[in-house]
């Protein structure tokens, strides 16, 4: 795969189960970029959680509303945006979670598995941006 930036758009129905399509696409892209098997599994889980959050809480499981997944292939990183149409997107910082509220758990898992994550609400809906690097960024203590 060349170092030139490539962008892949994917639109999936807001129906639980279709997050697997996004997981498969993310796997294919990450494999082509040379990510390790463990990192690919981390990415797939993060993508699945982001997509199910977007389906359930952004698009309220309205199958006609699409979740947009945008994968941007950069030289040393893969950025994945998951966009929903939620009119009232509101994200709490997922430092801790309540076991009875799995949305918080999903956001917590995403934060642990990718190198960078940002939740934002836009006029057109909610967005999660996740980035993983081919070589993880150096920790502050290193």
């Amino acid at each position, binding site marked *: 795969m060349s170092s030139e930036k490539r962008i892949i758009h994917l639109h999936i129905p807001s*129906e*639980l*189960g*279709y997050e*697997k*399509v996004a997981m498969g696409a993310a796997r294919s892209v990450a494999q082509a970029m040379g990510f390790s098997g*463990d990192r690919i*599994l*981390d990415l797939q*889980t993060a993508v*699945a*959680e982001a997509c*199910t959050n977007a389906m359930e809480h952004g698009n309220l499981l309205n199958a006609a509303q699409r979740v947009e997944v945008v994968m941007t292939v950069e030289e040393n990183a893969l950025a994945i945006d998951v966009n929903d149409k939620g009119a009232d997107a509101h994200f709490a910082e997922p430092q801790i*979670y309540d*076991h*009875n509220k*799995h*949305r918080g*758990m*999903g956001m*917590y*898992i995403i934060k*642990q598995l990718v190198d960078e994550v940002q939740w934002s609400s836009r006029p057109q809906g909610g967005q999660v941006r996740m980035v993983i690097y081919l070589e993880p960024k150096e920790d502050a203590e290193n």
Partner: protein
Amino acid sequence: MAQELKVTARHVDPVMVLDLQGDVTMFAEAELTRSYHLAVDNGARELVLNFAGTDYINSAGIAIIISLLTEARASGVSLVISGLSSHYQKIFRMVGLTQYAEVFDTVDDAVRELKSRTTAEPA
């Protein structure tokens, strides 16, 4: 698109093994809770949730498992976990699920441990 969860119960005296096949997501709740309660109602007190046939678990599924583990603990049932891939073992540790249950690499390891406890208990 989702792979429906099927749970098969088998008795490895005195342990009841619940073999999970399919996705562990919110759709799995009815089948998981039904299978667990059926086993307990039939007298099982040592159970293994065996995930060897599962390759997709999400946070909604984890929440269901935590709920079962909490219920088991409250009612004095030993419920342990086996067969998770190393990836999902990491996720379970990450969300603190290992505070609720012991996790074994294989179902044989889990059964062996539960058996040893029952034989060690005074009559």
